[in-house]
């Protein structure tokens, strides 16, 4: 594999960090300048990240070492196809989110905007760091930064619920961080290296299977907390008190995706399909994920708060990604990885819509949405597109990932998981379609005549774009960002070696 040494990954990480400090320095006084930093950083970051895509697609790897502590212990960036995929998702969606955030916070006249944008930029910076990290240590470093950078966003409202949510969030993620720290230290002790390797590097560690299983469990616990894997999902719905762009960021792009990304890294790049198959943990993993999928789907049905419903949907979808990876077949992996991208675009659309509803119509509950579609057709249209996509209905991008996932379940000869995917799709339909139906066709409860009153442009444009993109990806999976090529490249790497 060709290795290209370049400092571009570092700049990709740094650009938003620098922007964060510029934002802090600019402060509340000069809003326009402050927000222009955000936009500029977002665009710059995207350009930097995107400029590396062709290199990756040629099968090369970009590397940059920050510092070396010890032999085998270093802070290093290495971009492979899988990391690139996540990097592109995050950086592209940041542009959308920045625009949207500006509209959102100005629309609500939020307090502490500087802190908000600062934390936001830091979040993105660490997400890109996670995406590009070459080894578990680097990963952990950025993972912890992400944890902390998200905290101010979660508690942004400073209400009692917000603070409690923040506490819960910290309790979960920091515990996970500790467990991860231990597990990673253990791995370093056993193997002397922490570098991700397609197909895993733990196979030749020589540890007994009990130790390996324990380590695997710890790592999955550590990353699974952020990914909202079922017994550890509790913080996610509570964190819904955060402002909507934050929720969008949390759920679609940065935080949970980082968790899922970590899980996949562990499954595919640390332990590797072969080893997991030998240990037999893949099946347990798959069962946990299926459990999450089904239970989260049912729980989502019971939620009236729109964002909470979306949160459970997120849990559901993330578990699907993990299940895809856990099935360890080529198609399922492809499905899982591509679903990361697809889900990101669709879910962010949904959250943007929820935010737009909150800003414009001050409506937070599903039951209040009757007839809102006529008032805000663009928003609700986008919502409908994304919801349909998530349910896996063909023209949308969700279909493709679900298709591969189902295929994978068949390949693995595990019919039960096929049923899981099916059930999940049904549940998706069950909790999204009533919203769409009600908003467009049902009369509002109060007799106010709905009139066309769309959310601010800053908010509507991003959400329309993301919705459109999710259609485009459904039709041409390899459009623009080349997600599909990257996915297949990643899967090739994994299976080719392992």
């Amino acid at each position, binding site marked *: 594999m060709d290795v290209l040494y370049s400092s571009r990954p570092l700049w990709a990480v740094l650009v938003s960090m620098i922007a964060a400090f510029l934002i802090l320095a600019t402060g509340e006084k000069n809003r326009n300048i402050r927000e222009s930093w955000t936009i500029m950083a977002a665009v710059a970051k995207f350009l930097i990240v995107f400029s590396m895509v062709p290199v990756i697609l040629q099968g090369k790897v970009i590397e940059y070492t920050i510092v070396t*502590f010890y032999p085998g212990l270093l802070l290093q960036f290495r971009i492979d196809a899988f990391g690139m995929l996540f990097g592109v998702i995050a950086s592209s969606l940041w542009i959308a989110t920045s625009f949207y955030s500006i509209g959102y916070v100005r629309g609500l*006249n939020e307090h502490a905007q500087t802190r908000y944008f600062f934390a936001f930029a830091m979040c993105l910076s660490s997400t890109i760091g996670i995406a590009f990290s070459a080894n578990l*240590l680097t990963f952990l470093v950025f993972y912890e*930064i992400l944890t*902390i950078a998200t905290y101010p966003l979660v508690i942004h409202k*400073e209400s*009692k619920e917000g603070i409690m949510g923040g506490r819960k969030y910290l309790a979960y993620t920091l515990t996970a961080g500790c467990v991860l*720290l231990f597990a990673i*230290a253990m791995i370093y002790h056993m193997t002397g290296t922490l570098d991700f390797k397609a197909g895993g590097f733990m196979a030749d560690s020589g540890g007994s299977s009990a130790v390996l299983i324990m380590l695997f469990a710890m790592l999955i616990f550590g990353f699974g907390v952020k990914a909202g894997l079922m017994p550890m999902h509790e913080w996610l719905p509570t964190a819904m008190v955060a402002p909507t762009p934050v929720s969008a960021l949390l759920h679609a792009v940065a935080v949970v995706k980082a968790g899922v990304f970590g899980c996949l890294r562990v499954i595919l790049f640390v332990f590797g399909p072969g080893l997991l198959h030998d240990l037999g943990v893949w099946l347990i993993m798959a069962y946990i994920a299926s459990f999450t999928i089904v239970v989260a789907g049912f729980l989502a049905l019971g939620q009236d708060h729109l964002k909470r419903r979306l949160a459970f949907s997120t849990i559901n979808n993330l578990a699907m990604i993990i299940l895809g990876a856990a099935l360890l077949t080529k198609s399922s992996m492809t499905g899982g990885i591509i679903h990361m991208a697809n889900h990101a675009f669709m879910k962010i659309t949904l959250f943007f819509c929820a935010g737009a509803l909150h800003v414009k119509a001050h409506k937070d509950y599903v039951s209040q949405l009757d007839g809102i579609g006529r008032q805000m057709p663009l928003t609700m249209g986008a919502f409908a597109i994304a919801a349909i996509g998530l349910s896996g209905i063909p023209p949308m991008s969700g279909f493709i990932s679900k298709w591969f996932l189902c295929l994978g379940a068949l390949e693995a000869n595990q019919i039960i998981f096929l049923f899981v995917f099916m059930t999940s799709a049904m549940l998706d339909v069950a909790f999204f379609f009533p919203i769409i139906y009600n908003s467009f066709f049902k009369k509002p409860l109060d007799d106010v005549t709905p009139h066309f009153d769309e959310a601010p442009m800053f908010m509507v444009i991003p959400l329309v774009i993301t919705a459109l993109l999710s259609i485009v990806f459904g039709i041409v999976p390899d459009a623009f960002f080349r997600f599909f090529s990257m996915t297949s490249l990643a899967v090739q790497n994994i299976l080719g070696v392992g």
Partner: protein
Amino acid sequence: MAEQFAALIIVVPLIASLFVPVIGWWKKRLCYPWVVAVLIIPLISSLSILNTVMTTGKFSYRLAGWAPPWGIEYVLDHLSAFVLVIVSFISLMVAIYSKKSVQDNLPEKTVPFYTLFLLLVTGLMGIVITGDVFNLFVFLEISALSCYALIAIGEEGAPMAAFNYIIIGTIGACFYLLGIGYLYIATGSLNMADLANILPPLYDSKVILVAFAFFTVGLAVKAGLFPMHTWLPDAYCTAPSAVSALIAPLMTKVAAYVMIRLMFTVFQPHFSIEIVPVFTILGWLAVMAIVWGGIKALAQTDLKRMLVYVVVAEVGYIVIGVSVANRLGLTGAILHIMNDAVMMACLFLVTGAILYKTGTREIHQLSHLNKKMPFTMAAFTITALSMVGIPPACGFFSKWYLILGTIEAGQWFWAAALLCSSLINAVLFFRVIECAYLKPMEPAYAHDGGETIHEEIQRDEAPFTMLVPIVIMAAGVILLGIFSGKIISSVIQFAVPASF
């Protein structure tokens, strides 16, 4: 010239401290600039020594020109040069910081205060630099005596705390002295390097065992390790803020340094590991220190008192690193000496600044502090994150090496204690951060309320002389984290005994 820097590093602050009464007699105002100016010299010379050591390896300096086993020598190797830099740097920062605090709390005692301040620094540096076990005792006493006096002028309850410290500290120092006596009776030498040569054939002697036991207990008392820590919380908490900012980071660390020095330089590492089971005991004590310190800290509502218990726990960290007795653990311990010194200094400086500005240390009274003192609180937050172990702040890296060390030693419980402690730290510090940054909890959040409240809060930042050290320390926390790899590869890995 670099050789003479070694002499300067003690002589300059020493003579300067002797001149403080003269200067103070002439003009009281000049004490502060004098102290600050003087403390720059040890910093420069210790940096140059570190540089020399890094380029040419360790060297020694013969005092009074006599050859080592007969005369006294300074030994400057990587470890001592490294700790010297830490000590001189932090003392300079605290000296800068002390201006307002002293003006405010001890206006009439400026002259003796600064004299003892310099003497304390001198004592600490003398402990670090010397290569003679008895000379170490003398400087231990200089630092201890000045420390007693400085603590005793603190707030309510300080004299009693100081008295307890005197009693327990004297027991510790006397045990150390007794250890020297036992070593001396068995070997006839007092020089560390010389002892290291003579001792190995004597390892099965009971006298050496007893000497080792007394050293360990004495230093554990000085370091405030768990069952011997009882003097520590009261003493550090009641001391004036400039004093506790100096002693909390340095005293226990220097004692830990001496422990490392004795266990791995004077005694061969294999003696400390194989012949005496002391490390197992120490390790468990450290675990208890971590747990107990954490729990007690959770129970405090006073910020400074909370930090004091954190100090107890942090001592446990270093001792765990020492007692796993392998390369990684010891690297972690030495790194943590530095990191913890910087972090603790920063936290105590911030506490002092808060006390100076708001007059309170109660955690729940700190609301809106982020508006009043944004830089101070930012520094506090960074350091707090570092304490929790969030990368890239420095606390993460020492914790990382410590955990690696415990794993390598197969001590799972110790690793678990370290992990638990970072969780406890998270609870501790986020509690403070919540109080400082967020509004007091209200049942519902009013949308329009936000703007109006923070209009009223005036920025009331700590004075410049306080702010500068705080900010430098906070920056240091991050920079030390980022460059910890560099520090380890260029200094610490040579400081760890080669036999690991």
